[in-house]
């Protein structure tokens, strides 16, 4: 079936190509020889990683544990993910904050040094170019990580605006960390395990905070953040130290922290109600529609000054026409592009992500519905393979988040 799946996938790709040329263009480049490998590639394979093409990289979708087991273990013990395909970069210069504020909705100036936030890069229409976790390291240094699949367009977008900004005399430059790797360590054992590998007191580092510290003998950029809803860290480590660090983390956890692939990462982020760019957020979706109005700083709402601000500020004032919601449903798990109907069978939106929740043991999903039908408890129907199934709008996260915050 492995090969069969692939061959059959090819058939599908060809078929899809007739109706969706863009999709096929995206799908075709993933020929094996062209795929990039992270420095952990051999480590993944040696540990049973099942490698698949993802955003131009060969990445583990799972290891020997099933996706169900991996998802549950992350919440009970911990997970280690190789996320080196994501693109880390720094913006430096005395005007880097002013520059970044033109491109994102966050109140970057208002961030205390050493803290960060989730934000959204917007286009002129207020749509999302990408979501990103940004950190103000110092007033003249911003560190950020953007999605692998958006790397090229994000960097082109930043570069274009940086040229214009510099032409007007602004002081900003960048560095893209291709010499570093990125590990995500998530789950209740993340803190205690990582503490074995550094002298810094991690109990004083809270969710969203950033620090440049020595971990396992290497200078790392440590951010207390993640994509699972659990407490945890993202560790930018010099690539030559990445395999040693991964081994040390697994060893110090006595094997309880397990290598975890993209499959469980998707289940975990869905359970945590977090958007996946490309599914739950796209070029034509604004942060307001996506339910990320909280990420638009108060000062930014008053002043604007970012791309698409007119559209976004108007949506904040008037309310958006559609909204991202969480869904429970019966029947088969709703997958992306399943139609959402109201109780009378009229189209009210579309599912953007969905699956079976390993922790809740039921179907969860997210999607966009017309405003007014977005309130928790609203009954709806989801169409899957021509049949309709009962569902309802529900609050997110589906599984409570456990971020490490000061009490």
């Amino acid at each position, binding site marked *: 079936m492995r090969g069969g799946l692939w061959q*059959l996938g090819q058939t599908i790709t060809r078929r899809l190509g007739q109706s969706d040329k863009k999709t096929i263009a995206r799908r075709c480049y993933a020929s094996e020889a062209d795929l990039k490998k992270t420095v952990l590639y051999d480590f993944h394979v040696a540990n*049973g990683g*099942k490698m*698949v*093409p993802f955003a131009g990289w060969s990445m583990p*979708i799972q290891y020997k544990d099933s996706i169900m087991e991996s998802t549950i273990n992350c919440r009970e013990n911990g997970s280690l993910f190789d996320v080196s395909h994501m693109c880390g970069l720094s913006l430096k210069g005395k005007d880097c904050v002013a520059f970044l504020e033109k491109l994102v909705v966050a109140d970057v100036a208002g961030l205390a040094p050493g803290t960060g936030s989730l934000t959204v890069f917007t286009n002129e229409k207020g749509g999302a170019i990408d979501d990103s976790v940004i950190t103000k390291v110092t007033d003249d240094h911003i560190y950020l990580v953007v999605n692998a699949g958006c790397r090229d367009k994000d960097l082109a977008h930043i570069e274009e605006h940086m040229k214009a900004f510099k032409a007007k005399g602004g002081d900003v430059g960048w560095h893209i960390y291709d010499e570093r790797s990125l590990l995500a360590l998530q789950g209740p054992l993340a803190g205690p395990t990582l503490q074995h590998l550094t002298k810094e007191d991690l109990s004083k580092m809270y969710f969203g905070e950033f620090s440049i510290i020595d971990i396992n003998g290497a200078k790392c950029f440590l951010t207390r953040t993640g994509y699972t809803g659990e407490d945890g860290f993202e560790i930018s480590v010099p690539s030559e130290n990445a395999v040693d660090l991964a081994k040390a983390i697994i060893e110090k956890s006595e094997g309880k922290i397990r290598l975890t692939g993209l499959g469980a990462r998707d289940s975990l982020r*869905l359970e945590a109600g977090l958007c996946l760019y490309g599914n739950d957020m796209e070029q034509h979706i604004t942060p307001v529609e996506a339910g990320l109005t909280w990420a638009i700083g108060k000062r930014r709402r008053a002043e604007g000054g970012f791309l698409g601000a007119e559209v976004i500020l108007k949506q904040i004032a008037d309310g958006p026409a559609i909204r991202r919601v969480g869904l429970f449903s019966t029947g088969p798990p709703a997958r992306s592009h399943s139609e959402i109907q109201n109780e009378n069978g009229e189209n009210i939106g579309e599912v953007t992500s969905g699956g079976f929740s390993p922790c809740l043991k039921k179907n969860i999903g997210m999607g966009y519905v017309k405003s007014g039908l977005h309130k928790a408890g609203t009954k709806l129907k989801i169409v899957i*393979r021509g049949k309709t199934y009962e569902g309802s709008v529900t609050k997110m996260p589906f599984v409570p988040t456990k971020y490490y915050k000061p009490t």
Partner: protein
Amino acid sequence: MALRIWASSTANALRLSSATRPHFSPLSRCFSSVLDGLKYANSHEWVKHEGSVATIGITDHAQDHLGEVVFVDLPDTGGSVAKATGFGAVESVKATSDINSPISGEIVEVNTKLSDTPGLINSSPYEDGWMIKVKPSNPSELESLMGAKEYTKFCEEEDAAH
């Protein structure tokens, strides 16, 4: 099975293409069981022909690749199936896969236990996890299917190719 692996939350959501091909390291390669006496389709369903009825399910190899099955979409008794066309779908945590019928005929029974316990497909793919029983309309179709040895070889070749 798996004529189409589409809209998988991991595959599609994570922008893995439909052309996703998991390549397994030799370490993780597991050898699934293939039973003598059954006939196999290259889309990884099995058929057991006894008297006037043929039972159909997906192979151990198939369930192993799909992972935990969480939902099974089955047709109604009395309907008909055609060789190499879809009659249902299996949803795992990983993906949605259509299931093809290896032969044509009339559906005389469906395994209703699968609606409450879809995991039977994982735990017992050749016994309790059967999917439908069919009265074959063209028994000669069975001859075009693979035997156990041929199917084992087919799986090995597929694995080696990717």
